[in-house]
């Protein structure tokens, strides 16, 4: 077999693999997008013949979904605010200070990224109960702050690593105290990283299911939890409509994120960096 032929075969295989993966990811999304406009009152064979906005109307008229959406927005907003302030401060401390156990502390802060959400959800539930917190709302907030915090921390840390230490020292040499140097020089330079972390934190919180399942109760539940419950109770195509809305919101946020900071800041650039 000639080299040229082998090269051609390899390229075809490579493209085929990528196309396959893309289709695998996209087809369910496209199907639910189309189904969400289905005019039939039951889930019939695909593709639908008539289209309407009935499932979207259903969603907006349903107080159950409405409460879930409001809770999700509230939780995502508050969790993002808290995570952004604490995450950015923690990142600055981890970046600037040299102390024993620094690496261990950083690993601990980032650990919610790798701990299964089932375990986080269950732990927060037990912990909250021990503290005498039995309401769903504060519990959900606790859980969501915990899972969004590492995203802000990581995005801010990545930005801080790129800030030359001489900026901080220059500020000190010009008469600024460490606090003034952080406020006037380091924070403005880390702004994009912090903002990227905040947007990502919002997306994570808004889309989160696992932890919320444990922490929701019948009065406080997030939209994804509401969706799941409805799927079990009476499966209809409102689920598809909500999915489409979810995808839209997430897409807009990801787009803003990419414009603001570049996606690679948050999700990393792989082994080789850039």
């Amino acid at each position, binding site marked *: 077999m000639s080299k040229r032929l082998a090269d051609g075969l390899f390229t075809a295989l490579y493209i085929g693999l990528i196309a396959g993966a893309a289709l695998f990811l996209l087809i369910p999304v496209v199907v639910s997008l189309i189904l969400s406009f289905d005019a039939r009152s039951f889930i019939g064979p695909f593709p639908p013949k008539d289209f309407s906005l009935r499932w979207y109307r259903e969603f907006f008229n349903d107080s159950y979904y409405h409460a879930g959406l409001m809770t999700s927005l509230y939780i995502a907003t508050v969790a993002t605010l808290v995570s952004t302030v604490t995450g950015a401060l923690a990142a600055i401390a981890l970046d600037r200070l040299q102390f024993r156990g620094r690496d261990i502390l950083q690993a601990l802060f980032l650990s919610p990224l790798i701990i299964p959400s089932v375990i986080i959800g269950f732990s927060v539930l037990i912990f909250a109960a021990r503290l005498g917190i039995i309401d769903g709302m504060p519990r959900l907030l606790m859980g969501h702050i915990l899972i969004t915090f590492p995203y802000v921390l990581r995005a801010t840390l990545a930005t801080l690593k790129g800030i030359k230490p001489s900026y901080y*020292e220059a500020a000190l040499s010009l008469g600024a105290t460490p606090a003034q140097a952080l406020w006037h020089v380091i924070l403005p330079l880390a702004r994009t990283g912090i903002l990227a972390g905040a947007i990502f934190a919002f997306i994570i919180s808004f889309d989160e299911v696992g932890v919320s399942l444990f922490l929701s109760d019948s009065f406080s539940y997030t939209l994804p939890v509401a969706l799941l419950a409805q799927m079990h109770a009476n499966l209809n195509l409102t689920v598809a409509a909500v999915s489409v809305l979810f995808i839209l919101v997430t897409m807009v946020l990801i787009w803003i994120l990419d414009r603001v900071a570049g996606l690679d800041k948050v999700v990393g650039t792989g082994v080789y960096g850039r």
Partner: protein
Amino acid sequence: MAVLDLQNTGKAFGAVWAVEDVSFTVAKGEIVALLGPSGCGKTTTLRLIAGFETPDRGRIFMNGADVALKRPYERNIGLVFQDYALFPHMTVAENIAFGMKHRGVKRSEIPARTAEVLERVKLPGLENRRPSQLSGGQQQRVALARALVTQPDVMLLDEPLSNLDAKLRHHLRLELRQILAGAGCTSIIVTHDQSEAMSLADRIILMNAGRIEQIDTPAGLYARPRTRFSADFIGQANWFDGVMHGGRVASKAGAIAVPAASGGFGEGAPVSVCVRPERITVLAGGHDAAPYATCIAGRLEAVEHLGSDLSLWVRIATGELVQAVVKNAGAAPPDPGSGVTLAFGPEDCILLPAKDTSA
């Protein structure tokens, strides 16, 4: 009174003394260069003066007050960083105003002083530019202006010209000296570039392995190095090792006439003779060397064109290569391979203790 006075200052990182024992004073308005190879402790010394490091031994006085334990913002210093460290999110004017704001200059005075300092560094009217819109040379001057404008007691410059290309570097060298001298600024310039130190500084503090090797004026350091390290680091040096014998040095290359005044070495004492390349005259082989006290025969191995100078590499009988530098005045150099005579007088020799005895 000295503006800056370091007394037996030392700084260790772990078990390693980056700066072992450094003492020197800097007078008001003086420009001093801290010169040495990388890892000699010059940057650590600068960071000790700036307050980024705390000395593990010794004391640092600024205008008579012990500042060794003072934080950087409690010392009236100016610092020009190697990478300039201009704040990228601020304009030139905001960068320059930063130090004034934090050092308590009245808000109403800031615009006038900004304009004045930009005038001084020859960048008038650039107040509203961002650092990213400036060339390297302009950034360097803004960094200088930012440090100058607070009128620091001591101005510290860390390799201020090393990030510029060669041509600009030579041009800015003279200008930097004029700006510093014009502002009457007591300055310490850290550099590894001996020609930069020679041209910028009133005095050079030559450092080696965490200690001061020698402190002298640029001319003095070149003409009177006290150690082999000094002689080697500043300029080029040819070495002839031998022992004192009848007022001359008996070396493998032959007897070398040395200055009578360079006493201190008794009969039989091991010594090294340093001869600068430009002090050696190269004569055609077999030439009558009568006016020269020392003549060493050799063979011309290579001729290097350095533009204004020619560098002649001559292999002498001991097998060593000797470098001679002559002006490129138009006369053709001898052909490579031809026999030549290296000639110099006693006043061209610097006599130092032999290698093994000078640590």
